[in-house]
């Protein structure tokens, strides 16, 4: 034994004699993770979270979360002598007087944007590949909780510096809360510590942003990742891969090196962005006062779709019996997002209700093989994109010399018209891709080489695809529509007639597919 081995052995012995860990450590180090680039999206989320914790902790060492009024006497000349909150003044100090402070602020803000973008990309990957199916429905719901928490955490984070732009966002937030019927004004006064802007909101969202929400994040992310660990990661279909195995590299050494290395890549790229690209230059906005505003005010992009919905909402309010209900705020800011997020959270159960499929699934779907689900996903993306674009309608109008009125009206119409069109187009594209797969299996790959036959005819040479590729293109299961008889063998009628009719219809639509190439068809072709 070398000296190194002796030393490590002594330490391991010390630990093992106290907690007996050899068994599960051995199992863990041999654990296998399948390899695909799209599986790294969730990793980007996790690593961004760590970067946020590290950079955020640095910022808390200098940030003063107080709304008390100070006169700025720091190095940034244009704001010298101005009244502002201590929160804003301390953010200026971090940006201009603390070495590395501006870099850390920018790392933190860029990382937050990357975090949210990676969450959306990861969510879409999980959705389009069907990784949310049994036994992973609960993990999907945890994911929806994480994306919602991320939205809130980001909102609180960029509002902490108490600058003019984010303060305007808080004014809008307080208007949304205030619009809630019956209790809105009370909740708003309690949260802000009085009439807007109050003196308590910045310190309170600081506690939420730094302590409570990160705590919840840590707990939920831990359960989310442990579930992936325990239930084993899903894998794409391929040769040698079945519903009952996981094929990949073991944790020690390959996966640890690649995944650990990836953390440093993400951190490095974030730091590079922070070094060369300015973000949230609060000194240009000035301190928050409710009597002022800048033209072209926008929230951060992950809130932009909500702002877009609010901008296109019709001016509906109900004035009755001495009370007011603001539909123009409640519908776009609370009701529509509520329906969207609830629908997302419940989707695994909705899909299994439609298909009647109660089995475990560990092999992923190729999106083209589930045209209905893929089309639904693209439809939702279209909806959010239209809202997001409308959230920047004033910038678009100024930059491209368009009329704001026309953009807004176009968004109002587009948001109803474009999503169904996107659904139909996507479904058709998926079915075409299935047909293309079929052609590839039966007739092989077009090589582009033309051969002239003795008869004078020109043909293109097709090269047969590999056995492995052929398996990938035909190993998927094709859903069969649900059959629900009206009554059973004894003549007892099935309850819930209308619900069942809907279910059967949805199931039929879900099962629309191009039949895949069977072994017999392949044999027939091979005889040609």
């Amino acid at each position, binding site marked *: 034994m070398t000296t190194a081995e002796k030393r490590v052995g002594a330490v391991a012995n010390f630990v093992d004699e106290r907690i007996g860990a050899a068994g599960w450590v051995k199992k863990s180090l*041999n654990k296998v993770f399948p390899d695909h680039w799209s599986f790294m999206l969730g990793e980007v989320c996790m690593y961004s979270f760590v970067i946020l914790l590290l950079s955020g902790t640095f910022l808390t060492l200098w940030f003063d979360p107080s709304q008390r009024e100070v006169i700025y006497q720091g190095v940034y000349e244009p704001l010298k002598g101005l009244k502002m909150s201590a929160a804003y003044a301390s953010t200026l100090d971090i940006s*201009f007087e603390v*070495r590395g402070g*501006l*870099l850390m602020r920018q790392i933190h803000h860029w990382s937050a944007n990357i975090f949210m973008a990676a969450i959306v990309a990861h969510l879409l990957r999980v959705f389009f590949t069907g990784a949310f199916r049994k036994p992973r429905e609960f993990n999907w719901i945890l994911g929806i909780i994480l994306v919602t928490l991320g939205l809130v955490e980001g909102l609180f984070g960029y509002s902490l510096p108490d600058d003019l732009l984010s303060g305007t966002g808080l004014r*809008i937030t307080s208007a949304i809360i205030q*619009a809630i019927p*019956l209790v*809105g004004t009370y909740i708003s*006064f*309690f*949260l802000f510590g*009085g*009439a*807007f802007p109050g003196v*308590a909101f910045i310190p309170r969202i600081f506690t939420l942003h730094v302590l409570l929400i990160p705590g919840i994040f840590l707990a939920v992310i831990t359960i989310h990742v442990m579930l992936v660990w325990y239930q084993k990661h899903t894998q794409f279909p*391929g*040769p*040698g891969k079945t519903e*009952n*195995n*996981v*094929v*990949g590299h073991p944790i020690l*050494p*390959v996966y640890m*090196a*690649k995944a650990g*290395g*990836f*953390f*440093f*890549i993400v*951190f490095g790229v974030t*730091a*590079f962005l922070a*070094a060369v690209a300015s973000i949230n230059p609060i000194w240009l906005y000035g301190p928050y*006062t*409710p*009597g*002022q505003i800048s*033209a072209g*005010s926008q929230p951060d992009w992950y809130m932009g779709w909500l702002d877009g919905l*609010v901008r296109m*909402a*019709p*001016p509906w*309010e109900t004035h009755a019996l001495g*009370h*007011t209900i603001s539909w*123009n*705020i409640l519908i776009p800011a609370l009701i529509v997002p509520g329906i969207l997020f609830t629908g997302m959270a419940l989707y695994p159960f909705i899909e299994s209700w439609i298909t009647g499929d109660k089995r*475990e699934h560990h092999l992923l779907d190729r999106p083209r093989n589930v045209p209905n689900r893929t089309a639904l996903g693209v439809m939702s993306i279209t909806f959010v994109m239209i809202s997001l674009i409308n959230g920047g*309608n004033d910038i678009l109008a100024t930059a491209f010399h368009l009329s704001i009125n026309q953009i807004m009206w176009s968004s109002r119409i587009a948001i109803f018209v474009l999503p169904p069109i996107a659904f139909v187009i996507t479904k058709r594209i998926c079915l075409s891709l299935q047909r293309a797969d079929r052609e590839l299996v039966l007739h092989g790959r077009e090589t582009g080489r033309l051969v002239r036959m003795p008869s004078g005819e020109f043909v293109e040479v097709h090269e047969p695809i590999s056995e*492995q590729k*052929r*398996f990938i293109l035909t190993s998927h299961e094709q859903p069969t529509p649900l059959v629900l008889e009206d009554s059973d063998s004894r003549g007892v009628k099935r309850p819930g007639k209308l619900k069942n009719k809907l279910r059967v219809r949805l199931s039929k639509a879900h099962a629309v597919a191009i039949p895949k190439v069977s*072994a017999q068809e392949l*044999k*027939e072709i091979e005889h040609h």
Partner: protein
Amino acid sequence: MRTVSNEIESIKDPGPAPHVLRAADVNPRSEKRAEQQVAILFALSGVGSLLLIYSYVFVAKDVFIFIPVMGNQNAQQLGLGIGMAMSLFFVGMAAIHWAKTLMPETEVINYRHEFRSSDEDREDLIKTVKEGVAGVQLGRRKLIKRAMAASMGLFALPPVLLLRDLGPLPKKQLETTNWKSGTRLVTDPGNRPILASDLEVGAVVQTLPAVADSEHRPLSDIAKDPVLLIRLRPEEFNLTSEKLAMTHEGIIAFSKICSHMGCAVALYEQTTKHLLCPCHQSTFDVTRGAKVIFGPAARPLPQLDITVDAQGYLIARAPFSESVGPSYWERNSQ
């Protein structure tokens, strides 16, 4: 001869493709080169760390350097950032390159097991739970059950109650501003009173109410008090007689706080006499009493009843007749 079968058979799994060895697996020179590449990557990371340390210690905070395409950059911030980025990025690249070129590449198979617990385990669990619950005997112990329910119910109240002092009750705060009968309009900024005769046609002025301590207005007052003063020619107005009576010789006053979600309606289009709120683009027509002509706002901006005092300074004749700012449940908007 074709085999006829009624079942549609799926194409069988051919097993993975034969393993292709990497250059470093077979060629010792490639192996050495891969090692050197990993070493260079680690070295580059070291360079980054040194750049960070140098920038932190030796570069002054106020030095700016010109970088093509990017323009003037703060040298220390750029050095710290590029240094940090390099030191992190190249460590990652080194680890990944090492894994991809030199570490064992063979794939391993783990097997999944069904998650459902065995029937035996399930029955044992059910037995244990039943025995445990039977020990509680809640069904028999009605007195305990009732007393526990009552105490649990009361238990739920203190956590909610302890949050009561988070803030005051709204009471009349959303309905009142600092505008009273006779309050002078003063400029924002500057706090100077305004002579009606000093305003030319086409002028737009941002105003606040004159208060005892104009230098120290609480932000929650500034969230409700701002008023926009606009002077047009009297014939340009298209108002009811009631609203017209609230103007003074072509000068009209509106709350600057948007009736939609409370942003400051700061954009004024002179040619069309439209006020535009930059948040959600609600547009208000000044000539028609700030009526909403576009956007999600549901109500016009509240109009302030103005006149002049004995010295000719503009004053409010009465407080706002309705709440300023966004709507809420208790708002009587009729």
